[in-house]
């Protein structure tokens, strides 16, 4: 309905292959960025930053990471949280042990550590597929959390492995307020989102998808399976690792290995499934959904039960949350396996050919 594509013709492959080939989309994304960078900092409250916006962005990044591995390269992983943990503890140790290291670099190095661990646990993917691989990634999940807890060196010998983020600054700005943390997170997520999209639309992404869709055919046309799969593990873990570093430094401040449980891995997997497997956009939708759903349930369920005259505890609400998550996963897998991103896509198509139905 709002699309006016007539006259938007492409005279070069560059223009045809751009991320947003439709002008209205470019305008919309531009407005969204302006809104996120300039309007939100001016109007949002502390609560919004630290309870909604920052976790949303960080989990988007983690979901993006898992989506690269699971959605694009087709390798199911149940160990995303472990890679986040590696990123968090990696960044912590770099800042702790390398004097004068810029915080951003430390975050990236955290990501690199995660990528290394990712490659290690990705090795079995060369021989096994599907849920066999998923089980193998559980090994990473349990092993990493155990190692970070058991070896004090990782947490600088603090009790029960808790790390507290050091004060840090970026380009001379002390990142000490929720607004600044938000802006930093937003910048990192925006840039890494762009990079992911670029990979997805170039040979790297196509190779991943080829391996996902039909690995034998991929190999026959010359795609090296080992390299491609391990690259997916590395890039995916890198994204999760940076997300983990951001959890420690921009979201929670103090974090222990037990934060990065199997449950968190599952939640990130849910983000990918609900948001849309194999889409960049879906990672953001999924993260928003999973971050907002508990808040929404809390707001809705209490009054709802109050009307029915039933007092409910927060434990019940959180259990209901579990049930809703589980139910939604089954619902999405059955009804719309491509998630919210596909719904968005369908809606967009409808608008593009409006008023025609198809």
């Amino acid at each position: 309905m709002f699309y006016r594509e007539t006259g938007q013709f492409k005279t070069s492959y560059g223009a045809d292959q751009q991320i947003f080939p439709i002008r209205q989309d470019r305008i919309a994304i531009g407005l969204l960025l302006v809104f996120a960078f300039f309007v939100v900092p001016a109007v949002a409250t502390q609560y919004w930053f630290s309870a909604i916006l920052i976790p949303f962005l960080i989990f988007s990044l983690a979901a993006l990471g898992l989506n690269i591995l699971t959605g694009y390269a087709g390798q199911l992983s149940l160990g995303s949280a472990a890679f986040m943990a590696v990123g968090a503890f990696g960044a912590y140790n770099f800042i702790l042990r390398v004097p004068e290291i810029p915080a951003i670099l430390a975050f990236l190095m955290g990501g690199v550590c995660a990528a290394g661990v990712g490659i290690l646990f990705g090795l079995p993917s060369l021989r096994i597929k599907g849920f066999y691989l998923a089980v193998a990634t559980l090994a990473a999940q349990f092993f990493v959390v155990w190692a970070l807890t058991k070896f004090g060196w990782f947490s600088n010998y603090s009790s029960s492995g808790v790390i507290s983020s050091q004060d840090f600054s970026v380009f001379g700005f002390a990142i000490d307020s929720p607004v600044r943390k938000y802006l930093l997170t937003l910048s990192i997520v925006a840039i890494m989102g762009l990079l992911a999209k670029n990979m997805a639309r170039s040979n790297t992404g196509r190779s991943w998808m080829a391996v996902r869709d039909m690995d034998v055919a991929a190999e026959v046309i010359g795609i090296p399976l080992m390299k491609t799969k391990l690259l997916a593990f590395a890039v995916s873990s890198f994204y999760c690792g940076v997300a983990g570093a951001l959890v420690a430094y921009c979201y929670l401040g103090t974090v222990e290995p037990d934060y990065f449980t199997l449950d968190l891995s599952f939640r990130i997997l849910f983000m990918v499934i609900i948001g849309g497997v194999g889409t960049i956009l879906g990672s953001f939708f999924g993260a928003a959904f999973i971050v907002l759903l508990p808040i929404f349930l809390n707001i809705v369920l209490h009054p709802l039960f109050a009307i029915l005259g039933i007092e409910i505890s927060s434990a019940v609400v959180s259990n209901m949350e579990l049930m809703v998550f589980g139910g939604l996963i089954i619902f999405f897998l059955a009804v719309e396996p491509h998630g919210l991103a596909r719904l968005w896509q369908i809606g967009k198509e409808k608008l593009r050919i409006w008023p025609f139905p198809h």
Partner: protein
Amino acid sequence: MFNEFQSTGKAAPNSGFLMWQMEETYMAASPSGPASGSLDTFPRLLLEHARVRGERPATREKDMGIWQTWTWSQMAEEVRAMACGLAELGFKRGDNLAIIGDNRPRLYWSMCAVQMLGGVPVPLYQDAVAAEMAYVLQDAEIHFAIVEDQEQVDKLLEIKDQCPALQHILYDEPRGMRHYTQTFLQGLDEVIAMGKIHDKNQPDFIPAEIAKGHPEDVAVMLYTSGTTGKPKGVCQTHATFIAAAQSGTEFDSLTENEDILSYLPMAWVGDHLFSYAQAMVAGFTINCPESGDTVMTDLREIGPTYYFAPPRVFENLLTTVMIRMEDAGAIKRNMFHYFMSVAKRCGSDILDGKSTVSSSDRLLYSLGNLLVYGPLRNVLGMSRIRVAYTAGAAIGPDLFRFYRSIGVNLKQLYGATETCAAVCLQPDRQIKFDSVGKPAPGVEVRIAPSGEVQVRGKILFKEYYKRPDATAESIDAEGWFHTGDAGFFDDDGHLKIIDRAKDVGKLAVSVGGAMFAPNYIENKLKFFQYIKEAVCFGHDREMVTAFINIDMGAVGNWAERQGIAYAGYTDLAQKAEVYELIRECVEQVNAELSHDAMVADTQVHRFLILHKELDPDDDELTRTRKVRRGFVAEKYAVLIDALYTGKATQFIETQVKFEDGRSGKVAADLRIDDAKTFPAIRKAA
């Protein structure tokens, strides 16, 4: 100097420069004098564009997935090289060169290359079968042909023996040509490469050739599709086509910023005017679609600002719109129909800038524009259209109104091959649904006592090629061209065309001998989406009867929704339900006819639905899809008899040609139905 005649909007086209003449002639004076001396041929115009707007796009083509673009200076270079190459091959001043193919940039350029050398391009209809081409090739004494691809080469090879003069065939697309060893076959690529060397060696050659050109030289020869007799080559000079293009450019204030989609046959005068002459005069961009199948997609991508299509295209589009909307959900469908009724009420008035529209209607219309009209224009590829024309056949008023009401500035135009297409145009904001507008600047129009429309002006052709007899027959001593159309001017000076003069007949004297204008009735019938073609009979008869061709798409869709199973065209056409459907249409037309005293007696009493589609391949239609009335009447005489003898069915067997050239037979028992007629409503005096 060139800028003079593309002055943007300074001369308001409707500023009253029409004068009334006693012998019922309208003439529009040309506000800007004759074209300046140095820019009076197409090659000179090209050089000027390359100089003035060298970096602006001249030609685009959807190829290899994107719109390949050539600027004016690139185009000038290509044309120049092509001209040199042709000269190298021995092409001489005064030679005619055939151009056959879909709308391809290099085919358009070759026209100018030929003109550079003082030759005459002769575009042919690309879908003509070989035998049809042979006549033109012989008649125009073609030595050179530039064709699109292997398909066209094969056709020419088939008739090469009949055209001994044909010495060179140059092809644009080398695909599939590897194993053709004939020496007279060459790729355009080679010719251009050859030309580049030639140009380097003799850089003065082309400038000298261009200098030799004269505005009165023949610039192009267009063969009339000829509803009767053999086609005739209409010779148009640089001067005539430039004049025609110039007057249209002024009339609609066209600028170098226009985009036009060039998808109509290059041999058709309309395409030559819009895609070649006007583009060359105004310096705008022509866009060639990827293929015939992708025109609609390409139209949507390009979004032309200036658009030309015969009524058939608009009609098909509207049919598709209606069919697609049928599938929409109830809410959306109701919204669509509601806003379409709003548009019908006030849309064209708003487009015309009339102040009579109420503010509530304006509000509703702008809401509709957001929800329906804007998106609709967008999906149809018409968002950017400033001016759209239709011509070639009369357009149904409702069809015409539809496009105008959704904000597409669709106008009608009247003309012929002999007049460079542009005789009358509808000025912006003075649109009448049943007129073709006012005479173009510099064109005189009068109505002969016989009712025939006659034209005089700079746009008149020079002659029919090698047919002085025919030339003398159609241009009289005073220089009036006899169009062969019957029409009249209304009180505002707008020309209305009723029919071909020779087609206008009379009912038998026994029933009063009323005027019978078959086209008029047929057009009314054809406006129904279910009716693709209609042929009416009635001259010297007691009543009017009709052949109907159903529209397979629309009727098929309708049948599916009704749950009617059918085995194919012939089967569907003979279904009782379909007859019922068509009868309702016929009766509605009858009701309309009964309102107008002039035509009330010519209501359709009986009709039948033909078992096959009328087809140019079977000579029933011209290449521009006009009915060959005489031929059809003769071919289906047995059916006409059946219509007038009151039979309820009639068996018929017909030869048909298939697309691959094979022929076969279609046979059927055709039903014949009666339609209700209405008593004439006489206006109270």
